[in-house]
């Protein structure tokens, strides 16, 4: 058996690296075990672009203040109150300092990207995106002397009475070995890439889900922890899902497969029937509901139908729209019943009332006499070519996690805090985010609790060693 580390970090994303750096800076010896190969290191963090932090004044890259109170109110609203207030407020307070701390770890900010101006005040964007952010964190960690292993999937945890003893790791070269450490930080993400697990809640429909991020977040660590007596938190049936292009790969298609054109047209299912008010709400809320809506449709597929007048109203897309000179031709290309789609479009067009279109507000363009209605931004679909994007549910992350304290320490089922086990990131996001989502909060949870977990894990190791 090899040497014993002060702190073992499982995972290789934002939460894991923040924990590793913070533990190392607190004087601990640190080993990071990342299950993915080097290129895919960093799980879903690779795909991110921004982080939401409170700040009292505008900065070089943020257009105005975003107070702790405002952040809290936003969180309260998106979660519908399903949040641990004490923990959440603590996180928001700590997020202020993260803006500077993360820069000290080599990460660089930039103003919000083209097409996302609505986030310019609240969210700080990573220069070069999430992979650039990760590269910086890895570089800093390695310079500080953190040891990192790739292709090192943890397959088992030895835990006795809420006390972590050792982890079994499957390496690509040396086979299985056991690694001992004084403290554990679990930062291995959620279970969104584990289709079998998703099926427990969604049934066979989960086979038609696309996973937007890494194939390596299979939730194995979460499952082990819950099985070894850690208290769970968050609704296991909840997951964040958006409508993404049906032509996207099964895993790891990332940000570029998204569609935000729903408001500019109508959405039909495979029977060419509309099923929900496409004009209900403004971004980002409308963005986050369509994944679940499509998941509830037969075969988990839907089609955003629009016409050539609106193509330049939204960001250019990775996959080109499918086009037809007539609605019937479009329908046959989509393998929908042409007569049914024509009927749906004709009925919709007939129901559109005159109004003044403005996609930045809840405008007065709406339908009358069609079910479901389109309550805003309703305009006739009549100028060929007629266009469509096929969409499926794209799963971003899951909410089920381990319950933690303000020190990021796991709580056991008997209510006692674990002696030496800490959690950070998506694996414990459910403490703060019972449901819903506010852009950029995933990274806030990872950085804030990662930093805390690393520090506390190092502290525990120091106390044990002395």
């Amino acid at each position, binding site marked *: 058996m090899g040497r014993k580390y002060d702190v073992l970090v499982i995972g290789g994303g934002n939460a894991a690296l923040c924990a590793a750096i913070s533990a190392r800076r607190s004087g601990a010896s640190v080993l990071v075990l990342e299950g993915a190969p080097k*290129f895919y290191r960093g799980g879903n963090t*690779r*795909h991110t*672009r921004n982080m939401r932090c409170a700040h009292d004044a505008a900065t070089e890259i943020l257009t105005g203040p975003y107070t702790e109170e405002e952040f809290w109110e936003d969180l309260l609203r998106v979660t519908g109150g399903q949040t641990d207030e004490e923990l959440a407020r603590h996180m928001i307070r700590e997020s202020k300092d993260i803006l500077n701390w993360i820069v000290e770890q080599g990460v*660089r900010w*930039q*103003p919000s*990207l*083209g*097409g996302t101006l609505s986030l310019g005040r609240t969210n700080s*964007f*990573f*220069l*070069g*995106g*999430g*992979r*650039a952010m990760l*590269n910086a964190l*890895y*570089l800093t960690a390695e310079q500080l002397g953190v040891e990192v292993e790739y292709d090192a999937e943890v397959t088992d945890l030895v835990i006795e009475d809420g006390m972590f003893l050792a982890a079994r790791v499957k390496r690509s070269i040396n086979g299985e070995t056991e690694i001992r450490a004084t403290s554990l930080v679990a930062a291995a993400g959620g279970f969104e890439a584990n289709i079998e697990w998703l099926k427990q809640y969604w049934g066979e429909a989960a086979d038609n889900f696309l996973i937007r991020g890494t194939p390596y977040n299979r939730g194995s660590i979460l499952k082990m922890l819950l099985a070894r007596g850690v208290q769970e938190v968050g609704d296991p049936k909840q997951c964040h899902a958006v409508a993404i292009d049906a032509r996207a*790969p099964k895993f*790891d298609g*990332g*940000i*570029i497969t998204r569609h935000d054109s729903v408001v500019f047209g109508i959405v039909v299912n495979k029977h060419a029937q509309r099923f929900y008010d496409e004009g209900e709400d403004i971004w980002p809320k409308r963005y986050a509901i369509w994944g679940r809506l499509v998941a509830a449709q037969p075969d988990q597929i839907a089609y955003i139908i629009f016409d050539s007048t609106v193509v*330049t109203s939204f*960001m*250019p*897309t*990775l996959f080109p729209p499918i086009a037809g000179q007539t609605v019937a031709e479009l329908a046959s290309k989509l393998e929908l019943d042409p007569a049914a789609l024509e009927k749906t479009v004709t009925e919709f067009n007939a129901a559109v009332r005159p109004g003044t279109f403005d996609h930045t507000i809840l405008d007065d363009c709406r339908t009358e006499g069609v079910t479901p209605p389109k309550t805003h931004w309703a305009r006739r679909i009549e100028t060929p070519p007629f266009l469509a994007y096929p969409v499926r549910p794209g799963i971003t992350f899951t909410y089920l996690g381990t319950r933690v304290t303000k020190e990021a320490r796991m709580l056991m089922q008997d209510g006692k805090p674990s002696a030496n086990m800490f959690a950070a990131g998506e694996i414990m996001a459910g403490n703060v985010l019972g449901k819903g989502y506010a852009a950029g909060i995933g990274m806030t949870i990872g950085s804030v609790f990662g930093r805390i977990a690393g520090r506390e894990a190092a502290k525990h190791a120091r106390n044990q060693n002395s």
Partner: protein
Amino acid sequence: MHGTRILDEADRLMTVCNSCRYCEGLCAVFPAMEMRRAFSDGDLNYLANLCHSCGACYVDCQFSPPHEFNVNVPKTLSVARAESYAAYAWPRALSGTFARNGLVISIIAALSMAAFILGFAALNDHSVLFGVHTGPGAFYELMPHNAMAALFSAALLYAILALVMSVRAFWRDIGDPIGRADCGSIFQAMRDAGELRYLHGGGVGCYNEDDRPTDRRKLYHHLTFYGFLLCFAATSVATLYHYLLGREAPYPWWDLPVVLGTLGGIGLIVGPVGLFVAKMQRDPELLDEGRYGMDLGFIAMLFLTGLTGMALLILRETAAMGPLLALHLGAVFALFITMPYGKFVHGIYRFVALVRYAQERRGEAGS
């Protein structure tokens, strides 16, 4: 779609990037891309020449290989850039010189150096070629000044003509609407080129053998670029001395042409060596390996020019002067006439692309 496989690939990548935009803050390419929704051949050639090949967008991209989206912007734009040189070359008949450029450049260099040596030998007495010449006019005992000036002016004028014609075609293709460049944009582009503003990976440096950025290539490029300009300045000052002041080369070591030439020569020796080493160490994934010949040919030509020039300066009062002068003049002559048909054009095309970019930015800010 486009005329060539590489432009099709560049189009595919720009479509991916345009729906992602994470690299927006890294350089000029991505903001320029965002001003477009579809990409013509000219647009892609423009973006290719805006790219400084810093490598940051490869290291930072979540979709770079082995990801199935296979996004490699630096490599793709490198290939597209080199093909754009051939596409706009003037006269068209000579665009083929870009295909096996390393070979073409070495042959021309070897031929011109040989021609000068043979010419000196044929036209001069043996004792003159290998004699020791000192004092004003020493060089011209081997080749009359007027002949030298006429030959080199002709070579340079041809190079300028060919470059102007190529760049005109390039500018027409990328300029929409075809416009004249305004002074502000030109000035902005001079600053951006002069400091290599976009060879910086968004601020940290450029990427070489791994994911640790450095400013090494920028430094060596500055040595090369400013070394070249200093040498050019040295020659120009010397020409003015000759015709305006009637003072003949060689000049004493403290005189302006020699000081400029020495500083420039050092830059032209150290810079290309540094760039060569950096190139050899760079991750091949970032490079257009098919174009090593062109790149190395150019680096070698600059190095040879610097080296023979410095050797001439140091040994000008010995019997080696004659052969060295022949070699140096041969190198410079080859550098001049191959300018429009080698990697030298990268500077011109990049500059023009930077002018266009400055223009677009002003247009955006104005609207």
